């Protein structure tokens, strides 16, 4: 199940989200639970293809718990209620911890190293190793949690270290972002330490802090307009 969980989003679609992938992950365990009961196996495979979603790294929490519930003979309405109740937590905790925490924080570390002059063959592997250590540990932990707690896994999730890790990852990320912002404004990224550039970059940093992620589109447009201006200048000269 753990290996299959790496492909849980392979059939992600807007109708069932990861429903089909979730059933795919469960199948080895379901074959064990329903060995010599092929009709019940197929019924279980079908009901677990219903719409479901979870952060991919935490799908093991739900999968482990569902396997335990199936082993205990929980009726389908109980399984359905459990999945409906857990999906929100698994999505929000996973998104906050990984997509808005560990991932940007670890890649920011790599970026700081690159901009500060470290070789790429050090910075990039450091990012991949740090990130995937957290990633794989979380997947493995999730399956153990689910199998151990079954229907009570939500309480286990609330008391787990994961929720505390969300805040820590965000703080580390913000720290590294501050460091990188300073280095970029000082011209290290583009080898341009002109005072005017540094002042303009610091002002732009302030605008970005005020506006938020919406600044991305105007920044891309501005670079595009600069390119167009250069092409026009080239054409006219």
């Amino acid at each position: 199940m753990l290996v299959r969980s790496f492909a849980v989003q392979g059939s992600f679609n807007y109708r069932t989200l990861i429903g089909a992938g979730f059933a795919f992950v469960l199948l080895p365990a379901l074959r064990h639970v329903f060995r010599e009961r092929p009709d019940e196996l197929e019924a279980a495979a079908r009901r677990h293809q219903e719409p479901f979603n979870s952060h991919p790294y935490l799908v093991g929490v739900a999968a482990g718990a569902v396997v335990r519930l199936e082993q205990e003979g929980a009726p389908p309405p109980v399984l359905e209620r459990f999945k409906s109740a857990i999906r929100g937590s698994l999505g929000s905790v996973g998104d906050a911890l990984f997509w808005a925490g560990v991932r940007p924080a670890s890649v920011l570390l790599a970026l700081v190293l690159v901009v500060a002059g470290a070789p790429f063959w050090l910075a990039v592997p450091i990012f991949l190793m740090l990130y995937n250590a957290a990633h794989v540990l979380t997947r493995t932990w999730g399956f153990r949690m689910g199998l151990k707690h079954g229907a009570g896994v939500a309480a286990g999730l609330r008391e787990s270290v994961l929720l505390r890790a969300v805040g820590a990852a965000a703080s580390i990320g913000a720290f590294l972002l501050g460091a990188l912002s300073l280095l970029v404004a000082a011209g290290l990224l583009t080898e341009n330490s002109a005072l005017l550039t540094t002042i303009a970059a610091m002002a732009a940093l302030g605008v970005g802090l005020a506006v938020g992620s919406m600044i991305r589109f105007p920044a891309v447009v501005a670079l595009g307009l600069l390119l167009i201006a250069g092409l026009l200048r080239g054409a006219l000269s």
Partner: protein
Amino acid sequence: MSLPAVALLGGIVGLDATSFPQVMISRPLVAATLTGWILGDPASGVALGALHEIFSLAVLPVGASRYPETGTASVAATAAMLSSTAAGTWSTLLVALVFGLLWERVGGATVVIYRRSIEKLLLTTSGDALPSRKLELRHALTLGLDFARASLVTIGGVLLGSSLVVHLAPRADLPAGLIRGAIAVAAAAVLGGTLGVFGGWSERHKAFVLGAVAGCALLALR
């Protein structure tokens, strides 16, 4: 340039973004570095990848949201940049960066089309859920389809991007200092906007300011 190798990398990177195994080789920093390494210039790959990564930090793949596909765009833009004989110039980097930031929208659109198109694949002809064996086969098939989609997006990006880089970069009459300054300013703005990912100024200003102080210290030590 080895287009088959780049297409293979693009397929793997596209697959890694969502389908399998999500170990983050699809991040622009990694994807561009790998592309540069395959094509014999990892340093240029890192330079473009770092810039593209900065612009991608605040792009979050939450829930069923639609978002740009940064990995394949990074592979395509890097390969396009390195296809030019003027690969080391700032004009070439600017064209490749802008192209990558636009091409990721195309990749993202193909992801949406792909996700909609596989819905029927995951049902029987009568619209029911699949039997177990068929589910496994169809799930594996979707992985193959996503790989093919990502490869095609990468190939398309490389062909279009190379043409743009070769024709536009020499014609862009811009001083290198201006390009460098503009990229630094744009990157700084985007980095400021990224603090929202971690909770925004109100929640994380202390950590951010401490980080900036650490950045100053790092600068002083250089």
